[in-house]
């Protein structure tokens, strides 16, 4: 599934979550944020129910020191009583982050997406 498709699915899921819909769409409340600067990619996903595997992935695009544009991703996964997953990656070697977005997962399913952010 393409990243954008994942994002759309995530947005749909997030709408269900944030909209507080009842029925099969119900889930504990969650929040996700992303911040991309030239030197740092940061993502934070909070899922307010313990006992799950929670994961945040930041998908980013960077330019390396040879002027080449390429994409990548960085993740953090937490288990047990922890309700927050945070990832932060600094860029070095002359690389610059150009853009990125974050996706939050609960037990392997996409649950929320933070919109694209630009350095």
């Amino acid at each position, binding site marked *: 599934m393409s990243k954008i498709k994942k994002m759309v699915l995530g947005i749909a899921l997030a709408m269900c979550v944030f909209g507080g819909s009842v029925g099969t769409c119900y889930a504990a409340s969650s929040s996700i944020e992303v911040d991309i600067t030239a030197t740092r990619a940061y993502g934070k996903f909070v899922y307010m129910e313990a006992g799950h595997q929670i994961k945040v992935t930041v998908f980013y695009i960077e330019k390396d*020191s040879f*002027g080449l544009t390429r994409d990548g991703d960085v993740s953090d996964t937490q288990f047990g009583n922890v309700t927050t997953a945070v990832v932060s990656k600094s860029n070095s070697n002359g690389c610059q982050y150009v853009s990125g977005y974050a996706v939050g997962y609960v037990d392997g399913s996409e649950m929320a997406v933070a919109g694209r952010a630009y350095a």
Partner: protein
Amino acid sequence: MREKEEKKIHFTSGIKLLCVLAAGAFLLSACGKTEEKDTAIAMESHEIGSDFEYQDIAESENGYYFWECRCDDHIDPRLMFMDKESGRVVPLCNKPDCMHDGKDCNAYFPEMHSGQNGVDKHYLQYYDGNLYAVGLSSDNYAALFCIKEDGSEWEINAKLYRTDYMATGHWKSPEILIHDGYVYMVDVKQEMMKLERIPVGGGTAEVLFEGDSDASESMVYRIKQYEGFVFFQAYSLNDENFEHAAGGLYRYDAPGNRCNQIKEGLFGPYSVQNGFVYYGSEEGLCRYSIQEGTTEILADRPMTVPNIILTKESIILYDQMGDGDLTAFDYEGIEILNVSSEKKLLQFFGGNADMLFGEGMDDKGRSLLFLDLNRPVEELQWEELREN
């Protein structure tokens, strides 16, 4: 596939012989015509004179082809065509009365999903009268898709290499260049990348270049063709420090079947014309003679890996790591144009003396942009490339 209809026709042996001779004569004549046509197309391509660092725009004699930018308005990007003469941008569909807004439109192509043939909507190259894209085959191979020039038909032309998309869901578009009957390619998901080629239409992959086997990471990138040769860049790393990278610019010599290093340590964008390699560096705008092995500084102005393209009369540089200024020099190193823009590109693709292309972003998200170099200097600005 249409099934062949079997017909029982009885000939006398004399008529059979006549038919065989006639068919032979016809085939000989047809082969001759095909060769003539191929040569004509190759010459047209050579004469177009476009220079792209990122092959996201395909140029034919009549216009430019590209995939729409994937955004909230277009979750499934369409294949578009910009007419050179009129500047009109339309979906590539010739179906009468088509509204171009549904999957039945010829401009729509399948997305990539496990178990289906699907197209990655970035790379696009015009070659030998057809368009070529890459994507995923239903059996999980990175594949080359051949699309008819009018968008009406497509098929998988060649399977390139097996992917792990089914297991991981991760896809990285391969680095591709079609040149002189071959697909030159790099599987960019590999830690130790290598340059390979297979014949257009499919066949066995042949490894042309591999990095240092002792390195922890090898990368092959920016495959481009100039003056009948395939150029590419490669580096090997033994640690994560780019300053320790070994490699540079290489050229594949097809008759000798070997890759020669052209310029050691050249890792940034480059372009080639008349036996010279042009690039920007901390020293300035440089011209390197492949024959002599000497470097001349055309403009003494430090630059950090600018995108660079060459046209017949100018050297165009895009300041991708800085403010996004576009500067053109003549071949004496005199600045002849400078365009500052509020819009900084995410990626500068390249172009030609008439038109430049790139990808930008604003509050609405990403969009494809073009710069019409035929406008008066004071009116030069990046404009959105969209249906009009």
